């Protein structure tokens, strides 16, 4: 049953071209900053307009900085793309009413939510991994070496943050029938967590939004810090709890007693 529901989602994402544009957007986001920063001196020179004597001090970037440029794009625009992708994944079906024809069949509500969640993860992670590979490729060419195992570590730890965003969006999908409210609430929640984390500083050291901070340290030092470890554990626990809450909410909304 799960497989049937999941396959339908994957097919739908294929039919509405999400399998094409989402990976393309993620590649674009990943390579945009590393490439423009590398060629910035040349661009400035060709644009001209500067007196011969003017000297512009441009910062030099390390390979770790270059990879982090991609990560920071994902933290803003990448999250936005995920929210746009997922805002109607369940709520839209409730709003249009098509969900009625699915839920009058003997379908498990839990499996329904899980299939939606997994299909979203498949698409987002495929795009994210492809994007990071592209970023890694250009970083290695333009800035210097980042090892493959380090790339995998970045993908793993930053992937947790994206997983968190996807799960929050699924949760709001089970709460409201309006895709707009889902998008607003998801962005609000992730932005709110970031804000609170930066305000409270050290007291919220293990907040999921700090993952990117610790990833930067990891890239510089090469060691997985204890903060990163704890943040990972906290993130996984939070994701599991939000997922359970979504399943619970959805079951509650469509309570059916078989007898």
């Amino acid at each position, binding site marked *: 049953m799960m497989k049937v529901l999941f396959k339908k989602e994957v097919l739908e994402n294929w039919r509405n071209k999400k399998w094409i544009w989402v990976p393309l957007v993620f590649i674009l986001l990943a390579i945009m900053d590393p490439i423009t920063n590398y060629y910035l001196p040349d661009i400035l020179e060709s644009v001209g307009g500067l007196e011969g004597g003017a000297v512009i001090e441009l910062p030099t970037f390390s390979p770790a900085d270059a990879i982090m440029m991609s990560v920071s794009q994902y933290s803003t625009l990448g999250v936005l793309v995920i929210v746009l992708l997922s805002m109607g994944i369940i709520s839209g079906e409730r709003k249009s009413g098509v969900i009625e024809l*699915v839920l*009058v069949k003997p379908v498990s509500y839990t499996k329904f939510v899980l299939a939606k969640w997994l299909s979203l993860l498949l698409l987002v992670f495929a795009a994210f991994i492809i994007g990071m590979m592209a970023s890694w490729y250009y970083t290695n060419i333009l800035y210097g070496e980042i090892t493959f195992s380090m790339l995998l570590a970045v993908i793993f730890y930053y992937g947790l943050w994206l997983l968190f965003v996807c799960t929050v969006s699924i949760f709001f999908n089970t709460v409201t029938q309006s895709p707009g409210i889902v998008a607003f609430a998801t962005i609000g929640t992730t932005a709110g967590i970031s804000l609170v984390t930066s305000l409270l500083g050290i007291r919220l050291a293990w907040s999921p939004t700090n993952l990117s901070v610790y990833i930067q340290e990891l890239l510089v030092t090469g060691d997985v810090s204890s903060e990163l470890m704890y943040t990972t554990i906290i993130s996984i626990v939070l994701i599991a709890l939000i997922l359970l809450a979504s399943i619970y909410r959805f079951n509650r909304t469509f309570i059916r007693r078989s007898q």
Partner: protein
Amino acid sequence: MTILSVSNLAKQFNNTYAVKDLAYQFTPHQCIALIGPNGAGKTTTLQMIAGLLQPTSGEIIFDKHKSIDRRTLIGYLPQQPVFYSWMTGSEFLVYSGQLGGLTKTASRKRSAELLDITGISEAKNKRIGNYSGGMKQRLGIAQAIIHQPKLLMLDEPVSSLDPIGRREVLTLLEQLKTEMTVLFSTHILSDADEISDELILLRKGEMIESGKMKDLRQKYQTTKITLQFLENQAFYQKKVAALPHVTRTLLERDTVQVIATNIETARQEILQQAVDEKWPLLAFKLEQATLEEMFMKAVNDA
């Protein structure tokens, strides 16, 4: 023998009851019409039985199938079915069948059959987004019966169709009755009258009449006299109304409808007076009142 019993079923929305104290025993292979004016609670009732809405109180029990998910036994067609418009008709049916518990192969086979039965097999590989209203309605019926349910429920299945589509759907429902129990809602009495064996009449969420069609016909059987005059229908209506045994008169287009306590005596009185006063009588007709009278009476009086 019953297949489904509903007892004390109620649904409350913000302090008002959409459905109240509904109780009914459904017999297999019957066609039951759920009838009532708009807002009577028909859709709410169907949604509760289908498991889309949790009743505030009451029980819905499928006899002999107590331990299984009752959705396996139910096929449901909402009033305005919405499909995945990016799927083809055939894809949607196969998907529905799989959700209903069929294997992919079995679902494909059954889909092909149903596309034939419902007459949309030429459009099976077209996107549902391009289907007409009538085609969507047929696809809706096909998805409802794909897993061979014991109870088929349809919410206003014919009210949005043209006369030909309506005829076809009613005929299809009559055929399906041999395989399952059919429960459909409508606000048009003639649809119910035509194909149903039993009737549940709802008004403001309450069941005000129910039972076998033939019993109800007997119970509400009244005879009425239809009169038509050459001119001045309203003038003669007053005269007829003044007669001692006439209980009610009604001016309907250019005829006068007469309901009497004792139809024999009323007939004598009317004819006598017509002769005495030389009424310009065009037509005089004794008729059996249809269920329409019952419907109107039940809806207005209660």
